[in-house]
């Protein structure tokens, strides 16, 4: 598929943050609307400029909330955009949808948002049960967690490629090092060493507690527009040089480790080809890291290393501050905060805009000012995937 006509045609022009970490007493919707307000203010547009409001999927309402829908968020923002949508499940269609809407001229600005009160509301993420009753067949086997689905692919990778906790500890420690440079990261001021990683409880073997992203209160939003409009706004535009999107909609247990149809593989090839880049051109990666293993799998499926070389490639030195390939420079979802794909995308945009403070690439000793950052967004259990190649220059 030749997507070169879309290269650098769309840009990300604003990012919205909220208080994050543990912020009790607030609804999920409140984080969405605060993030959107801050994102449009950051971009320098008004709420009436929003042509499309695309909201990430929301889990079941908790903490006394009503259901968090795109209508609620639209209502609370007082906007009436032409397009309002929300993914019901964890598909990752927002990127292609935004590109299509903007490039066709159907709308001028797209806002993407995520918000949750998962931490204060103690979200359990057990979706196979509802009110203690099974919602599918897997509950009959006690298979109650998304984590186990990732754990099974991680186990298969251990068996096939020789990865394992000794590799995942490197990811965990590298991202924790980044978090020490990010004052808003959940794990800021909480350094981690290898002993600390191994001391964490085994949750679903082979994955430990520190292999999983903790839940967060808070929200995140971004604003996208065309390159022409982007150049008139106040922030330096971050151009979308390459995009990829792919789905592998099979039950997680049917996913094979080695399969050319894997969503990350297909999506990354599309994005790299469109961007006209090779792996050596990438200055940093901001990757969806629901689990440590997801980072390994994404780097592998993107072709950054040969599967058999996983142990040599994935080291805290390479991925951490000052390393050859900085990965998840905010601390990522593992050590900063969990806002689905907007954790990695927001960080990439902030890095390319040069707004990252102590963790700014180019300022961190041993790092260079980034020109190209690759981001991933992953949904379900490796079932839906989006790749962005973001660039400072058009």
């Amino acid at each position, binding site marked *: 598929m030749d997507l070169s006509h879309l290269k650098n045609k769309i840009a990300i022009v604003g990012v919205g943050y909220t208080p994050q970490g543990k912020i009790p007493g607030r609804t999920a919707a409140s984080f969405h609307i605060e993030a959107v307000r801050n994102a449009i203010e950051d971009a320098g547009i008004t709420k009436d400029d929003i042509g499309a409001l695309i909201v990430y999927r929301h889990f079941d309402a908790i903490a006394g909330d009503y259901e968090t829908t795109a209508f609620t968020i639209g209502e609370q923002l007082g906007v009436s955009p032409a397009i309002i949508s929300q993914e019901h499940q964890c598909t990752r269609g927002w990127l292609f949808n935004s590109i299509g809407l903007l490039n066709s001229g159907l709308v001028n600005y797209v806002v993407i948002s995520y918000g949750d009160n998962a931490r204060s509301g103690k979200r*359990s993420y057990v979706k196979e049960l509802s009110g203690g009753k099974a919602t599918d*067949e*897997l509950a009959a086997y006690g298979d*109650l967690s998304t984590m*186990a689905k990732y754990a*099974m692919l991680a*186990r298969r990778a251990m068996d096939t490629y020789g990865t394992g906790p000794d590799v995942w500890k490197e990811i965990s420690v590298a991202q924790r090092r980044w978090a020490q440079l990010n004052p808003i990261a959940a794990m800021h001021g909480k350094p981690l060493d290898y002993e600390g990683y191994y001391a964490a409880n085994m949750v679903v*073997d082979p994955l430990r507690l520190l292999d999983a992203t903790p839940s967060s209160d808070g929200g995140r939003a971004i604003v996208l527009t065309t390159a022409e409009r982007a150049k008139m706004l106040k922030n330096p535009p971050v151009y979308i040089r390459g995009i990829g999107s792919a789905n592998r909609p099979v039950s997680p247990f*049917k996913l094979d480790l080695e399969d050319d149809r894997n969503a990350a593989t297909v999506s990354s090839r599309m994005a790299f080809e469109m961007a006209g880049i090779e792996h050596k051109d990438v200055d940093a990666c901001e990757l969806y890291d629901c689990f440590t293993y997801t980072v390994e799998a994404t780097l592998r499926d993107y072709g950054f290393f040969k599967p058999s070389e996983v142990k040599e490639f994935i080291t805290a030195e390479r991925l951490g501050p000052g390393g050859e390939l900085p990965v998840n420079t905010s601390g990522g979802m593992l050590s900063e905060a969990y806002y689905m794909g907007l954790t990695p995308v927001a960080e990439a945009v902030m890095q390319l805009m040069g707004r990252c403070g102590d963790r700014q690439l180019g300022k961190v000793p041993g790092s260079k000012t980034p020109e190209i950052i690759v981001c991933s967004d992953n949904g379900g259990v490796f079932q839906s995937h989006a790749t962005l190649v973001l660039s400072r220059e058009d």
Partner: protein
Amino acid sequence: MEKIRATEFFAPDISADTAAFWEGCKEHKLVLQKCKKCGKLRWPAAYLCPNCLSDETELCELSGEGVIYSYAIYHKPFHPSVADKVPYVVAEVDLKEGARLVSNIVDCELSELKCGLPVEVRFIDGEGYARPVFVLKK
């Protein structure tokens, strides 16, 4: 060494598509759909064959033999009612005839488990249903 024993979890939520599978289990038979047109074994159950979209389906009783594709060991109980059941093993089993099921591996030591090990089916009767589990083939 921790010996993993069979235990009952939750009664499955059975749909119109999966009913035949669970009926088979009640008779301690592993029964999956097979496409009459292209011959592909189908799991999860569905109305059409996802390979050729034919709706001509037959039921096929399987040998119950397979190998472990992968497995995960639940140490954390994700629901209060399974607190006394951990650790337990959830596994993906590649059946000899060519479908992959999620099930449990039981009657084994955790240290014995490995991807690729041959396993065979057993059935456990629960309240109003029966479910397949697998044991290591000695």
